[in-house]
């Protein structure tokens, strides 16, 4: 079982690490189990009822006695106390396990770091060697070597150590390669650091966690290996490990005499140690490489309505296509109060309109978009508001009902990152899938292919590309393919979530032109999420400026750029470069955007606002109507109506 490559974000100095680890139940249980065994092994002479080396009068009647007061776990094939042997057996098994693992880790660690860091021929040779060692069957080889040399503790340790380093070498090499390609290593080289310095200060600290996890896993493998070898009769006859105990019991009639204690007890010890180590290893891995334990298919949370914060009539629209009213979304934060990611946002969308949703990172714009189609992650919950689409409130629909609305009426174009499309299915298949899902009457024959080709053509992709896989497309092409897919069912609304953010400016221009022409041709309404104020100015009819999860300002595009009233909007415009005024000095806004789980009391922009008054820090501003279809949330605007 391979541990994942560890990308360390939070640097755990020990006490911080311990705090996180303490909360990991699996790891903690494993640690406790291991601690108990180590304790038993160290204090064996004190804990065991008998002295194992004493050969007091043992007669045949002492053989395989059932558990009794004198012998809590019975006696074995030689008449000795099983409990005593069990306790002392821990020593043998642990010693062999730890030392063998130690050897493996040294070999594997050195091979891995050297191969990963130096690359080239060194790496090729080392890795080929490792590959060969990997395919040589461990157990038969160990058996042969030990049988033909001498079954002693030292030999067993050496043999296990000499064979069990291969996985460690591969893991360490992968991690070394991963770390080596990170920018801070490049920066270290740029500073002039030598190879030794880089290995010591940059590679090792980040490879160490993987070594620790591997260490735990290798010890457990070594313990299992030793017990297997001993069971097969290749253990050290002078050292009574648990495996050796089982060997004697099995080979000397424990089964036929029904002496279950002689068979169960030593095995139990092995399971305890290995399980403890495995749990510890899993726990460590989870702490060092926290994988989000949630996924996209987890059941969503029910929509709640608490009626707080009645909104202001913001638009004179009759029958808008989409009417979002007072939408609020929280993220559950176990133990702590929920993060208020979106609070009381309202906007409308009419046919053929392009609304721009502007905000910086962490302002909640993606959350807002996901909430519209009820695509929030497991921790997200709509806690207020309605999303009216043609007078149907999407927040009240059942799963099946919302599935029918998704894509068919409203579709989404995500950032066309490599994995927004399934990498092992062709693009054409994925487009066809959308069609067959929502248009069940659509014929599944040649005409389906023709429709796919038609859609691709609409976005400027040649027909034969439909049989290609996403990784064969360039970034711009992938984005266009996603647009084609989004159009597959002739939706009325398209939500485009930062569709051009990662693309070159020329490709961005192509995509924007495409979206604009599609809008005109098909009468689409588009919600365009972005942080680029230039794109918004070029494309949008209306603009919603978000900050810290709330609406800062919402108005027609011309008003936003030439008559903005909210301090944030004004400052943001001053911070955004304008190529037609190249000598204009850019201003910045002091501080940085708030975290949604640590929002300030009062106006969310107040900490950074140069015009904040005392009231701003205490009370959240209401949405004030400033004109026809122009609202902003700022205390300073209260007087002006």
């Amino acid at each position, binding site marked *: 079982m391979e541990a994942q490559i560890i990308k360390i974000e939070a640097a755990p100095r020990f006490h911080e690490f311990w705090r996180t680890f303490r909360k990991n139940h699996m790891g903690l249980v494993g640690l406790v189990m291991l601690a108990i065994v180590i304790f038993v092994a160290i204090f064996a002479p004190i804990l065991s009822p008998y002295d194992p080396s004493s050969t007091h009068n043992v007669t045949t009647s002492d053989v395989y006695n059932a558990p009794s007061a004198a012998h809590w776990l019975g006696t074995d094939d030689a008449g000795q106390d099983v409990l005593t042997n069990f306790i002392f057996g821990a020593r043998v098994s642990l010693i062999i396990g730890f030392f063998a693992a130690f050897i493996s880790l040294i070999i594997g660690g050195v091979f891995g770091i050297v191969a990963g860091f130096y690359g080239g021929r060194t790496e090729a040779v080392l890795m080929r060697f490792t590959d060969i060692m990997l395919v040589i069957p461990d157990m038969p080889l160990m058996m042969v070597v030990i049988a033909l040399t001498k079954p002693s503790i030292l030999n067993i340790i050496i043999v296990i150590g000499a064979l069990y380093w291969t996985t460690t070498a591969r893991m360490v090499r992968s991690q070394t390669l991963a770390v080596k390609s990170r920018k801070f290593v490049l920066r270290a080289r740029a500073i002039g650091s030598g190879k030794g310095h880089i290995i010591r200060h940059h590679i090792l600290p980040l490879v160490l966690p993987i070594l620790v996890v591997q260490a735990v896993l290798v010890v457990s493998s070594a313990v299992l290996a030793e017990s297997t070898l001993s069971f097969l009769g290749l253990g050290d006859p002078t050292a009574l490990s648990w495996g050796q105990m089982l060997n004697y019991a099995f080979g000397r009639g424990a089964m036929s005499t029904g002496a279950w204690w002689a068979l169960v007890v030593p095995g139990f010890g092995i399971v305890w140690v290995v399980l403890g180590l495995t749990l510890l290893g899993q726990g460590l891995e989870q702490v060092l490489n926290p994988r989000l334990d949630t996924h996209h298919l987890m059941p969503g949370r029910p929509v709640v309505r608490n009626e707080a914060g009645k909104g202001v009539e913001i638009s004179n629209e009759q029958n808008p296509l989409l009417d979002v009213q007072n939408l609020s979304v929280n993220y559950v934060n176990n133990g702590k109060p929920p993060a208020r990611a979106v609070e009381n946002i309202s906007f409308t969308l009419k046919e053929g309109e392009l609304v721009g949703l502007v905000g910086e990172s962490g302002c909640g714009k993606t959350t807002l978009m996901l909430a519209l189609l009820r695509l929030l992650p497991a921790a997200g919950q709509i806690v207020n508001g309605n999303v009216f689409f043609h007078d149907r409130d999407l927040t009240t629909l059942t799963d099946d009902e919302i599935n029918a609305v998704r894509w068919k009426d409203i579709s989404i174009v995500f950032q066309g990152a490599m994995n927004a499309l*399934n990498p092992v299915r062709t693009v054409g298949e994925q487009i066809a899938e959308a069609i067959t899902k929502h248009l069940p009457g659509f014929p599944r024959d040649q005409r389906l292919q023709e429709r796919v080709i038609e859609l691709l053509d609409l976005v400027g992709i040649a027909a034969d590309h439909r049989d290609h896989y996403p990784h064969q497309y360039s970034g711009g092409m992938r984005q266009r393919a996603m647009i084609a897919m989004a159009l597959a069912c002739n939706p009325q609304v398209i939500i485009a979530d930062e569709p051009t953010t990662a693309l070159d400016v020329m490709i961005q221009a192509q995509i924007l032109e495409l979206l604009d022409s599609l809008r005109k041709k098909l009468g689409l309404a588009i919600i365009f999420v972005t942080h680029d104020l230039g794109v918004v100015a070029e494309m949008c009819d209306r603009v919603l400026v978000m900050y810290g999860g709330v609406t800062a300002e919402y108005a027609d595009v011309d008003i936003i750029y030439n008559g903005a009233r909210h301090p944030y909007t004004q400052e943001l415009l001053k911070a955004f470069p304008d190529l037609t005024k190249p000598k204009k000095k850019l201003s910045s806004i002091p501080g940085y955007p708030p975290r949604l789980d640590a929002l300030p009391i009062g106006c969310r922009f107040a900490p950074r606002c140069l015009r904040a008054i005392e009231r701003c820090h205490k009370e959240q501003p209401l949405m004030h109507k400033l004109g026809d279809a122009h609202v902003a949330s700022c205390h300073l605007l209260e007087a002006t109506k």
Partner: protein
Amino acid sequence: MNRWRYLINKISWALFTILFVIILNFFLFRILPGDPARAGVRDPRLTRENIEAIRIRYGLDKPIINCFESLNPVKIGSCVVNPLDTQFFIYMGNLIRGDMMISFHTNRPVTDILSERLGNTILLIGAGQILAIIFGVFFGMFSAWKARTSLDYASLTLSLVAWSIPTFWLGVILLFWGSNNGMPIAGMSTPGMSSYPLFAQWGDIARHMFLPTLTYTIVYMGEYMLIMRSSLLDVLSEDYILTAKAKGLSVFQILKDHAIKNAMLPLVTIIAINLGFTVGGVVQIETVFSWPGLGMTIVEALNRRDFPVLQGAFLLIAVSVIVANLLADLAYSYLDPRVKTE
């Protein structure tokens, strides 16, 4: 075109590794104490002439390899021995002809012995792997889908325990339970079954197979379940699953058309590798249940110092591991279009 190059590359590497293993195999049994020539002499049934005949046939009286035996730096470069007349080349020559020597113990050709036993092992592994895969994949999928619920935690714990149990011990415990409940405790079939109709014979073998297969299944099921769970969890957090959800596909459709295939990919590799390894790793189960397969063969040969058999078995296992790895690579490259074959 590129795929061919990839294939050739992988196959030639596999052949190279096999060659390496053959050479290793040869030297291993010559270097380790326990001179095969002397060991063979132990069999009291062999007459002096027979012993000599064996020695000459397998070149055991010849030097192992050019000047190797001397290992005296002075002597290097002045070898008087004809390199082709060494044990090494005789061994290689025989190997190419499919001759793996004769068992010191039973005097039967090693190839015969191995092929008999191999079948039994494959029967056992086959059944065990299939069941382990079915159960492991199913529980793994289920656990990942219901991640973080109590069902998941229970499933996870059971799998970790199964993963931690030594195979031989599980076998012993099951055997103990089975022997107290009337199950056969050793071997592959009851003596005297050959006079019964075929169907009854198979039933008998099945009864004997039950416990060892159960042991095998439990141990490997744990591993597959853990891998499947972790793999599916990864897949289900990918962006394209969100895209699929946004497309309005139902959970079942998403699992079927997008998630399972992707999640199975790592499993394919592991299964193939396991298949290769367990030809050797099945030693534990066969010893406990006295199942007459390749594992038992090794243990017996080891006890009797029957080198030709050991050598042959070892080679067979190593080659099957290498071939299994090769098949795993090729299967993976076929299933995952992202694998760069250029």
